[in-house]
């Protein structure tokens, strides 16, 4: 091949696209020497390739459909009382019950309350799901764990049944402690100057509502309920330290793990009513606008002391130790290289022509490289199934190059450009059909929340697409040049 021919290949848009993508991928992967002198890349690894632990929590609640002849709000209140659970209206005919009940139990309770159960699914609404996620994230961050991921796993019906917490760099026991840990919540009252006295601990708070906006004052607030004893203690303290007489000099402070998270005086209404009666329901208001709303959201989490609005059960967990992760990583790199070499040997055995084998193997390698680049660019976490997917892509990729080569070499003749294009088109026809089946076969996995398999499916689909759109056409162009020599 002379330099003019090489130039012709390199400037062909199909080949040029491939080369540009390979370069971009190398940049994205960014191999470099890290501060410890080891070779490092921008690739991120899942918890089976690096040290860490994951815990999957099952939310013990139900989303149910219902019909009733009674006013909806009344029905919901009635249910909430008879079930002794928080019941939230999601839309006109769905409610969320934040306590575990079987379908049969609920059917009976619904009938008693004058309604009918029409559907039953374990889990919570998307809103509640993301709320639980925020609580967990806040809690984990406040404990200073840096590399944490919390994901809700919603089914196709928008009901969140599972939440997965991934913590890099910790072992199983630590992870369980972090997720299970509750903060220490306390309300204190200002006596004189900066002095404060203890009023109550978080254990007397029986329920906490979602932040609400007061329609008269436009101010955001979080309503919470105290137990009888808690309400009594609150009233006693307010009277004893003079907050009922002079609220502005006796602020109430809410403290979580020794940090003040809220501080405000009693409202004048509450101050005067506390003089005579104790009150169980109170609203901590946080002001107007976005700032007020944000503060209300975090205050709610603090009031719960990191406790979740629904009960959870551990549905699954796993951990990988640092040496095991390192070892797996090494093995995967080895597997990739080894796979590429064996594939190269088989191809060589078949064609015996370096001019064909070399471009094939290089195209194959470039495909994996582009995929890795993409994985690095979108910060996708590589795990073991993803590696299997990558090697599978290597296998199918070379298959399709074989189809192209054989189709073009049909009857051993080097075709004229016209015939060549016809044959290439036919080969691409076979490839597109085969690729479409692989993609379709993987789509259900990519859409479902089968935890670890999602990544595998997405990578396989991406690999097939990269192959059909980018590397196959480029290979067709290169092999034509080589064969017409």
């Amino acid at each position: 091949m002379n330099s003019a021919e090489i130039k012709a290949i390199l400037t062909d848009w199909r080949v040029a696209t491939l080369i540009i993508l390979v370069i971009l991928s190398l940049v994205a992967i960014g191999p470099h020497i890290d501060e410890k002198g080891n070779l490092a890349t921008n690739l991120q690894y899942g918890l089976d390739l690096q040290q860490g632990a994951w815990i999957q929590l099952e939310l013990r609640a139900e989303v149910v459909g219902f019909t009733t002849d009674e006013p909806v709000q009344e029905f919901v209140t009635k249910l909430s009382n008879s079930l002794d659970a928080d019941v939230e209206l999601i839309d006109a005919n769905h409610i969320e019950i934040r306590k575990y009940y079987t379908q049969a139990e609920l059917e009976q309770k619904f009938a008693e309350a004058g309604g009918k159960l029409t559907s039953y699914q374990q889990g919570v609404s998307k809103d509640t799901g993301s709320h639980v996620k925020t609580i967990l994230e806040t809690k984990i961050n406040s404990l200073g764990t840096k590399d944490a991921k919390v994901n809700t796993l919603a089914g196709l019906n928008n009901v969140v049944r599972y939440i997965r917490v991934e913590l890099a760099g910790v072992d199983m026991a630590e992870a369980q402690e972090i997720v299970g840990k509750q903060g220490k919540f306390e309300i204190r009252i200002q006596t004189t100057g900066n002095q404060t006295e203890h009023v109550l601990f978080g254990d007397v708070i029986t329920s906490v509502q979602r932040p609400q906006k007061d329609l008269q004052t436009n101010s955001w607030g979080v309503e919470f309920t105290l137990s009888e004893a808690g309400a009594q203690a609150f009233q006693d303290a307010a009277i004893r330290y003079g907050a009922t007489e002079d609220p502005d000099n006796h602020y109430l402070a809410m403290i979580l793990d020794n940090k003040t998270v809220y501080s405000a005086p009693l409202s004048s209404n509450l101050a005067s009513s506390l003089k005579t009666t104790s009150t169980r329901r109170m609203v901590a208001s946080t002001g107007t606008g976005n700032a007020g709303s944000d503060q209300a959201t975090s205050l709610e989490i603090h009031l719960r002391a990191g406790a979740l609005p629904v009960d959870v059960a551990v549905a699954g967990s796993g951990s990988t130790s640092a040496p095991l992760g390192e070892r797996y990583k090494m093995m995967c790199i080895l597997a990739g290289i080894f796979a590429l070499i064996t594939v190269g040997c088989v191809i060589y055995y078949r064609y015996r022509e370096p001019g064909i084998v070399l471009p094939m193997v290089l195209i194959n390698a470039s495909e994996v490289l582009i995929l890795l680049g993409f994985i690095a660019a979108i910060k996708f976490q590589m795990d073991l199934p993803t590696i299997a997917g990558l090697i599978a892509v290597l296998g199918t990729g070379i298959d399709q190059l074989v189809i192209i080569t054989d189709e073009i070499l049909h009857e051993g003749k080097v075709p004229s450009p016209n015939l060549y294009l016809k044959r290439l088109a036919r080969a691409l026809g076979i490839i597109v059909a085969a690729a479409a089946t692989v993609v379709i076969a993987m789509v259900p996995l990519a859409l479902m929340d089968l935890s670890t398999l999602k990544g595998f499916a997405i990578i396989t689909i991406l690999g097939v697409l990269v192959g059909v759109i980018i590397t196959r056409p480029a290979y067709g162009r290169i092999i034509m040049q080589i064969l017409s020599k």
Partner: protein
Amino acid sequence: MGLINYNIEKYSPKQLVVIPLVLLVLSLLFIGFNMMSTGMPVTPGLDFSGGTAVTIRTTDTQDDLRAVFAGYPLTEISDMNDAKFLKFGTMDDAQSKSLVTLVGQKYPDASISQISETFGKSLQYQAFIALIFSFIGMAIVVFLSFRTFVPSVAVVLSAFADIVMTAAAMNLVGITLTLGTTAALLMLIGYSVDSDILLTNRVLKRQGKLQEKLAGAFHTGIVMTSTTFAAITALFIVSWIGSIQILMEISAVLLIGLLFDVINTWLTNAAILKWYVQKGGVR
């Protein structure tokens, strides 16, 4: 590849399908039997049945390990190269936490995973749905790309036979159904259709003698299968050396499936196509 000569001229389509048909019937019987005894076509592994698995790299013998975990419902210990895989039955929260602590003290480098029974059930259900949808999706693509009934059915049938035979073989060699092996079965749907599409395309859309077209397709197809086989063998060997159970299971299932694919593509599918062409289904 020059070593294998593919000549099915002297056999009638009926003779060709005998072997795969017998295999398919045996596999279906085998799976059916397994279904009756365990309720699942392939014995479910940890991911679907629930339980706790611990992977330890240690020189301790199985008896040593049994002694260490005497207080826990240890159901199985298996060796793979230099690693030991321990499986435990269901435990309550407290017991499972104490197991985690014990493992952490005795074998700090171990990896632990635990799946509750209900979560396993829900995974199992979803995996089943995924498998069904994948298969239906694949069948639709095949029908759309050929638009003729018999050849499309032949492709779908051989893919089905691949999955069924592989599932039966998994029971035979003791590979359980996990998330990983489910993925491998799904991947097989894609792989097996590859060579079927090539075969059908060559036979229906090319000019020439039937036998030549079949031989030509085989020539290409067997190279395709051997390259894939080579890549997966590499994965299998490395995962065996590195004792990475999930990768070893995935690659083992793929290897078994690829072998059955050779039978189903070049006997079953080829036979049906031959019958179809000879009957005059193609101009």
